[in-house]
């Protein structure tokens, strides 16, 4: 169970994205602003944006290309998202403390065993069940490297880490249809070009039965669009302090509808 101190920044924590990282201690000419930062100039950024976009379509199993595409094209959307976070009290707290969703072994504060022991129907238990069902771990997420501003890099990292939690909140699995629904939701919430293109192009590749469930009256597309525009920003929700909350209450608080059951 995570304690009230949700910060995962120990000294020497290589996962930290913080502005205590002193660039003047780096060798000459090294302009990195946080660990794992890879500065790009305009030409490289454009080249990587286009190239990774093509690679995402041609080789969708390459998650490093999806990450690169999101990071190289997301500057404007991240800025807007960061301003939305600053306008919200809990979002400000998250920006100040910069909690990371990683397991204790991976340097974070998530204790999966404790989450599994939580009562049925709680947020933490639902998250642990989701991870176990698909064999995921929060440590699998790549660290942001192509965003220059450390705060925007943290926002991008936070967005990436709550993607699985968005799955849990929307009650969607990781099949293609579930991913498209979550991507529409995230597209509305964050405005990231990666989410918009991913949702749109992904929906073109659905199988016929999935497409029917997707497009029908009261189907998944309607649900995704409605929820995306009505719900509060999930990036502003301090998940690490609320594992014990019942999932239904969390959904109510964030104004997320219960997902349709069209099986």
């Amino acid at each position: 169970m995570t304690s009230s101190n949700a910060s995962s920044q120990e000294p020497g924590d290589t996962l930290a994205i913080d502005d205590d990282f002193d660039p003047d201690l780096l060798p000459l000419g090294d302009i990195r602003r946080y660990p794992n930062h890879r500065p790009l100039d305009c030409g490289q950024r454009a080249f990587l944006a286009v190239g990774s976009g093509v690679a995402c379509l041609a080789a969708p199993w390459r998650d490093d290309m999806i990450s690169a595409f999101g990071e190289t094209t997301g500057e404007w959307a991240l800025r807007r998202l960061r301003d939305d976070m600053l306008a919200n009290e809990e979002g400000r707290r998250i920006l100040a403390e910069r909690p990371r969703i990683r397991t204790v072994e991976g340097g974070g504060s998530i204790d999966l065993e404790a989450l599994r022991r939580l009562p049925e129907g709680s947020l933490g238990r639902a998250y642990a069940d989701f991870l176990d069902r698909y064999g995921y771990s929060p440590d699998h997420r790549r660290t942001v490297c192509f965003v220059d501003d450390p705060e925007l890099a943290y926002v991008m990292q936070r967005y990436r880490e709550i993607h699985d939690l968005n799955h849990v909140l929307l009650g969607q699995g990781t099949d293609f249809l579930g991913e498209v629904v979550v991507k529409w939701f995230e597209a509305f919430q964050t405005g990231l070009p990666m989410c918009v293109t991913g949702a749109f192009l992904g929906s073109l590749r659905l199988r016929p039965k999935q497409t029917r469930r997707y497009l029908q009256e009261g189907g998944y597309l309607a649900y995704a669009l409605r929820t995306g525009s009505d719900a509060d920003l999930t990036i502003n929700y301090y998940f690490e302090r609320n594992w014990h909350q019942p999932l239904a209450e969390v959904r109510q608080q964030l104004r997320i509808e219960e997902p349709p059951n069209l099986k």
Partner: protein
Amino acid sequence: FIPKMQCRQLLRCISRSPATSSSSCFGVARRQIHQPGGFDTSFGFEEVEPGQKQDRVNQVFNRVSNSYDVMNDLMSAGLHRCWKRRFVASANPRPGWRVVDVAGGTGDIALGLLEWSRKLPGRAPPPVRVAPGDGSVDSFREAAERQTAAAEAEAPAGCTVSVVDPSPSMMQVGSAKASAKGSTFASSIQWLEGRAESLPLDEASSDLYTIAFGMRNCTDLPGVLREAHRVLKPYGRFACLEFCSVENPLLSILYDEYSFRVIPPMGLLVAGDWDSYEYLVESIRRFPHQTLFANMMREAGFSAVNYEVLWPGVCCIHSGYKLPSVK
């Protein structure tokens, strides 16, 4: 308008001592530290212990082996094929020679050498004998094919190549290519795992020693050259194809910008590996100047040392002969 990051970098350029410099102030910074001594052990621009460097280099090549050839084509826009063909022509292996190709993992040079030596006169192909059959066209064709295959399988013309490479995964790619070309090619090539500083070959066993784009990855250049001198027979030839210092100033600027800005992102897109390709371009910059390398070859005992710069001026072929020692 200059963004904050570049401002900080510009200030650093101005305030530090002139002994160190970083090029391209308004682009991505590169740590270019000029060492007066020339070459010392460095992993790209990162300083590492000599023992560690070999491991790091092995890791790089194990990671990029699958996309190595594709990346070569993309990075050089296909020019590397012209360079290698010119290298094989200048090495000129004769039929019956024993060649050692060092750091030749994916087999480009080995296959090129075999093809070249087979085209040279030295062995006439046997005539196709008409076998008894039912007289139909198909049986004649089958018989002809069987005979040519048998004749080629006996003892193919050309040289034999021993490829020595520290990376097994690179050699796997190479042997797959050799098998795809034909069983005779595959049988003329021997794949040995080993380092250039200590070749698993006997003294004076080779007529020709080739190394293409591998010298810059070696930890101990004088040691590699001494070892090359050891395994060559008297009057044996040493040939090294490697990237060199670019003399033309305009080309040098374009080449630097292209190497440092375009190649690592391309490596990320195609091979999924930015760091390995950054290492590869940095290791090129740390290689000694072509005249300095020629002197190193003379010190190792080679005679008639010469180098030839290939178009457009980014790589050159060093060659030398081992004369029999005067007793």
